[in-house]
């Protein structure tokens, strides 16, 4: 069978993915250990918030295989997938379910973390906006959500190893190189060349959101502008 190398994952998406891996491992470890590492937990929180904002924007203005509408797991797509009729590059509908679940849980973790407090010395940057009682509640959720994240990460990594060992399909390499060998008559040839302006827009927006969340003076200024 003749095959051709196709671009499946654009480079900003791959950088996003591996930075997110580092962020999740780092946030989990520093969160469990506490002490001086709590300082790092908050820094990693900023990184994670930035990454999530970037990915949400990239899902609309990024390249084709990063577009949410490209892989949103509709009932129809899931049906086709389970009947074995789904052959496309990018996330398959079942994997897409797990991608959206991961993104959703991470959004919830970051959002609750912004308002959290550790009852020792550290507070999330938006703690003063909610007060202690509500912050305690959100801190509880922050901790409970970690278990859901762990479950999804186990599924995610488990599925990758199932593909690698059972189906003999390596999903890790395309997430590093961006390319995948596919039969030459592959129906979909996605355009995965990231536009510089779009990349700059998504990145700058992510940085701006992180800056606004951590800088109360800048938030006040934005509130003034909005009035």
């Amino acid at each position, binding site marked *: 069978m003749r095959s051709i190398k196709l671009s499946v994952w654009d480079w900003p998406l791959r950088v996003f993915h591996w930075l997110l891996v580092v962020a999740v491992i780092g946030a989990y470890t520093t969160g469990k*250990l*506490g*002490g*001086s*590492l*709590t*300082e790092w937990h908050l820094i990693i929180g900023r990184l994670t918030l930035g990454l999530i904002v970037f990915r949400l924007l990239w899902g609309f203005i990024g390249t084709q295989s990063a577009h949410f509408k490209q892989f949103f797991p509709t009932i129809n797509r899931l049906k086709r997938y389970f009947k074995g009729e789904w052959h496309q590059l990018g996330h398959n509908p079942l994997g897409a379910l797990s991608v959206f679940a991961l993104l959703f849980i991470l959004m919830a973790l970051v959002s609750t973390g912004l308002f959290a407090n*550790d*009852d*020792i*010395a*550290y507070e999330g940057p938006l703690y003063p906006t909610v007060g202690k009682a509500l912050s*305690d*509640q959100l*801190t*509880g959720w922050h*901790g*409970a959500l970690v278990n859901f994240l762990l479950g999804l990460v186990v599924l995610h990594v488990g599925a990758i190893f199932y593909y690698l060992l059972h189906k003999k399909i390596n999903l890790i390499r395309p997430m590093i190189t961006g390319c995948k060998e596919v039969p030459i008559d592959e129906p979909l040839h996605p355009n995965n060349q990231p536009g510089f302006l779009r990349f700059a827009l998504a990145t700058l927006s992510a940085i701006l959101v992180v800056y606004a969340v951590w800088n109360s003076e800048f938030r006040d200024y934005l509130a003034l502008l909005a009035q």
Partner: protein
Amino acid sequence: MKLTTLLGLTALSFSTIVLANPIEDQIRIRQSTYAVMGWNTAKIKSQVVDHPATYNKDQVLTAVNTLAALAHSNLLEDLYDVGTDQGSGWKPTRLKVDYFQKQAEVKEINDRLIKETDEFKTIAVSGDVAAIKSQLGKLGATCKSCHDLIRIKE
């Protein structure tokens, strides 16, 4: 003689009252104690981590001394009687029911709290901000080990 006996009895009864607070009082006082500890820890953190320009050696030393005094205050014996896992002080207690089965670990953490705050005093006197920061981390980890062990998560 009669008067001395009377005074003695009164003193005894007072001391008994002090030793055996009603359950809700114990819960309220320990919640207050931890709030004061949090206030002082936050003050140290603010001056050595967030705004190093505001570092004030005397204030940090006072905060550390307060923490050490509270660590030495015998709170395990005074404020954690059987039954204090239920009830409300300023708000409902979050003490786990199995607190009373974990006495050895609790004692170990309490000893560590005393040790870390005592060492903190020497470090705060030295005025070495980097060392203060690192000791604050060790103290925070001690607080966390207890939160993880005996406190109900919200």
